[in-house]
């Protein structure tokens, strides 16, 4: 009896150690190099020129933004400490944090912020995220710690967009002196400074001891590129790395049985869907689109193919996005689906081509095959066409006249954490390809007007209401088969603490530490 009690104590104590309770009591141990295994390398380390989330993850440790998005989806100040918005919504005044220095000693001031925003806005820079802030017409320095953004039209998502790492503030001195070489040696204000980038192998950053905020405990962070899923998992098992990202769902159970490891599943802001070409038959008929929504068993796909690691969509955007509300999930109902097809004038079913990428989204090929099988049950015969991403993205983004898609699978990460980015770019009729990503060629004047109004309304509860209305119409119109939002499966060595996955698909390791 007493032995059992003792055993229970040991179990609880080790559980506490594993879950980080012990760490909360004692200060985080200092020093050490945290090694993170990622599937892909950064493409550039110029914070204004990158596009991928793996690069954003590295940049976020080196450079900082004016605002920050917490994992809970809250917007908080970062390099800006406060803001005011004029009554007409066209003048945004930002007060900057004082005493902040870039890694090269350049002070962070209004001049530096103006330089950065001007650089992103300059069309010659070719900044991929320029669209996030293109309503800004002019950046004015009011005094060394105040900048004013003058907007062409009121633009409510602006502050959220200034939390996106594509608008991070980098050292103007370094950008000016390093020229093209800057993309390989970035300089920011973050808790870590850049050390080296061996392309295809690793990016290394070291602690910045003059950091304005809470200083990091780790000496170094290394991102190692391990493209093979199996090898990445083996590397964390062997202890060659501390963290393995993008663990395949099938490995979760096995890894959970290993005491030296911890597996965490965190929902992301990325939703996966199948877009219909709503301008051409047969999918210009709402009933056909709704029929396919009823025909696809989303729960079964998530359970059987994704090992339960995803969340079935109940709206076009994921829950962690500001402006989300739960609308509805089309229940799996083949009878209803067949009835809808009959009503639409397809009593004997129909044939269509279904395009999908390979290796872009978690188990995309298997999901496409499942949809094909489920559609067959209601008499819809889908021909699958697989393409590699580069071919695919050009194919689905052709203008309507040249666009040959009938239905195609896509994913969208609402990386700004604000509904505008997840809805305007995908459902507003001004966003039809090749301009933006409304690849369903969806057009509903009511939705257009609601999305426009939400852009210029600064009251968040009013915006939420407008987005809810818009999403209710969108879900009913069914320009997509609403599938699921992906989750990120990450494996950590037990000695790793203070590191977590952000819904924006990036690991946050600045508060990380290694237990000895």
């Amino acid at each position: 009896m007493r032995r059992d009690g003792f055993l229970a104590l040991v179990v609880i104590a080790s559980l506490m150690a594993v879950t980080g309770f012990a760490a909360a009591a004692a200060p985080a141990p200092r020093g050490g190099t945290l090694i993170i295994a990622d599937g892909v390398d950064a493409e550039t380390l110029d914070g204004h020129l990158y596009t991928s989330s793996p690069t954003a993850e590295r940049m976020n440790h080196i450079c900082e933004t004016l605002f920050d998005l917490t994992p809970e989806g809250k917007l908080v100040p970062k390099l800006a400490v406060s803001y005011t918005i004029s009554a007409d919504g066209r003048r945004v005044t930002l007060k900057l944090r004082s005493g902040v220095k870039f890694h090269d000693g350049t002070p962070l001031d209004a001049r530096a912020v103006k330089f950065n925003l001007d650089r992103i806005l300059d069309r010659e820079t070719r900044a991929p995220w320029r669209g996030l802030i293109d309503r800004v017409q002019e950046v004015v320095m009011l005094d060394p710690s105040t900048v004013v953004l003058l907007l062409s039209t009121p633009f409510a998502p602006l502050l959220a967009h200034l939390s996106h790492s594509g608008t991070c503030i980098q050292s103007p001195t370094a950008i000016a002196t390093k020229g093209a070489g800057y993309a390989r040696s970035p300089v920011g204000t973050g808790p870590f400074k850049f050390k080296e980038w061996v392309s295809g192998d690793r990016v290394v950053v070291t602690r910045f001891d003059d950091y304005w905020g809470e200083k990091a405990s780790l000496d170094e962070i290394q991102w190692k590129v391990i493209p093979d899923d199996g090898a990445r998992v083996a590397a964390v098992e062997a202890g060659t790395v501390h963290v393995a990202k993008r663990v395949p769902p099938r490995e979760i159970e096995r890894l959970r049985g290993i005491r030296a490891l911890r597996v965490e599943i965190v929902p992301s802001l990325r939703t996966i869907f199948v877009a219909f070409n709503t301008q051409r038959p047969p999918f210009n008929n709402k009933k056909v689109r709704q029929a396919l929504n009823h025909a696809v068993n989303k729960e079964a796909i998530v359970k059987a193919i994704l090992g339960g690691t995803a969340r079935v969509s109940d709206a076009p955007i994921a829950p962690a996005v500001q402006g989300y509300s739960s609308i509805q999930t089309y229940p799996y109902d083949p009878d209803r689906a067949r009835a809808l097809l009959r009503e639409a004038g397809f009593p004997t079913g129909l044939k269509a081509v279904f395009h999908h990428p390979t290796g872009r989204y978690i188990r995309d090929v298997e999901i496409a095959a499942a949809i094909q099988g489920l559609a067959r049950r209601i008499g819809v015969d889908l021909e699958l066409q697989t393409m590699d991403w580069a071919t695919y993205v050009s194919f689905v983004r052709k203008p309507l006249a040249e666009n040959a898609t009938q239905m195609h699978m896509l994913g969208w990460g609402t990386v700004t954490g604000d509904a505008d980015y997840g809805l305007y770019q995908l459902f507003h009729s001004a966003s039809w390809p090749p301009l933006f990503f409304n690849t369903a060629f969806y057009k509903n004047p009511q939705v257009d007007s609601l999305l426009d109004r939400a852009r210029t309304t600064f009251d968040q509860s009013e915006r939420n209401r407008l987005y809810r209305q818009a999403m209710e119409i969108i879900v009913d119109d069914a320009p997509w088969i609403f599938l699921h939002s992906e989750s990120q499966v990450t494996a950590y060595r037990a000695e790793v603490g203070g590191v977590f996955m952000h819904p924006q698909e990036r690991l946050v390791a600045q508060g990380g530490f290694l237990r000895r």
Partner: protein
Amino acid sequence: MWAYIGKRLLLTLPVLFGVSFVVFAMVRLIPGDPAEIMAGQAATKELVEGIRRDLGLDRPILVQYVDFLLNLLEGDLGHSIRSRIPVTVELAVRVPNTVILALSGIAVATLVGVPAGIVSAVKPYSVIDTLVMLVALAGLSMPVFWSGLMLILVFAVVLGWLPAVGTGTPAHVVLPAVTVGMTSAAIIARMTRSSMLEVLRSDYVRTARAKGLSEGLVINRHALRNALIPVVTVIGLQMGTLLSGAVLTESVFAWPGVGRLIVEGILARDYPLVQGAVLVVALSFVLVNLLVDVLYAAVDPRIRYE
């Protein structure tokens, strides 16, 4: 001899010219647009067109090709579209890694393959021969992404003797070298065996044996040297293949070599990167072939290059 090498080197130029044209045309024939990939999810049409202009992709294709050739003459392979750094810099990182892996892989393959082939040939159709050939067949048929993972599992995860992935120390080379070496070893073993069998049946070997020479001397001095010519050719071809990058092995062991660089380049439609890397690979293939031809003369004194 030197005149021969000089002539062969000169012949390399038209080969490389041909390769440059084929690869230049090929990468552009695959559908997909590098500007679109580079611009990413939030891209506008204007941005994509701007990038296309920056890259010079809006110009006629012939103009682009001539421009590429002129830069090539100055040793400039252009800038990678994805990383925006010179292709020569990208290659300078990757080529040494590929050479290390290729040399160590071929060392493993030769040290295992040649003795295995000899043993097999000396005792043909014996238990040991069957066993060696069975192992060789397994080595040939095993996909490296599987055998590589198994090696990691045993030597890194279970035994903890070697690092699972990565580069940096000699210990890091062992598992990837064994993985790529296995396939080549199997090919070399089979080649050595058949070549040796043929030679062992020849008249001069019978004469050597009739002279009363020991079996060891017969095999080492008389049979092996003559049997080696086709084996050297195979080793050379394997070396050329390994120098063009072992994509799967590089992926499994997170080995930043040329193979992965090319595949990633193709996926991102990074035209200059693919062109530059393929040219370097073609050059190394040609040079290895030349080296093999020169080695013939060393192995077989009857061969002379005038």
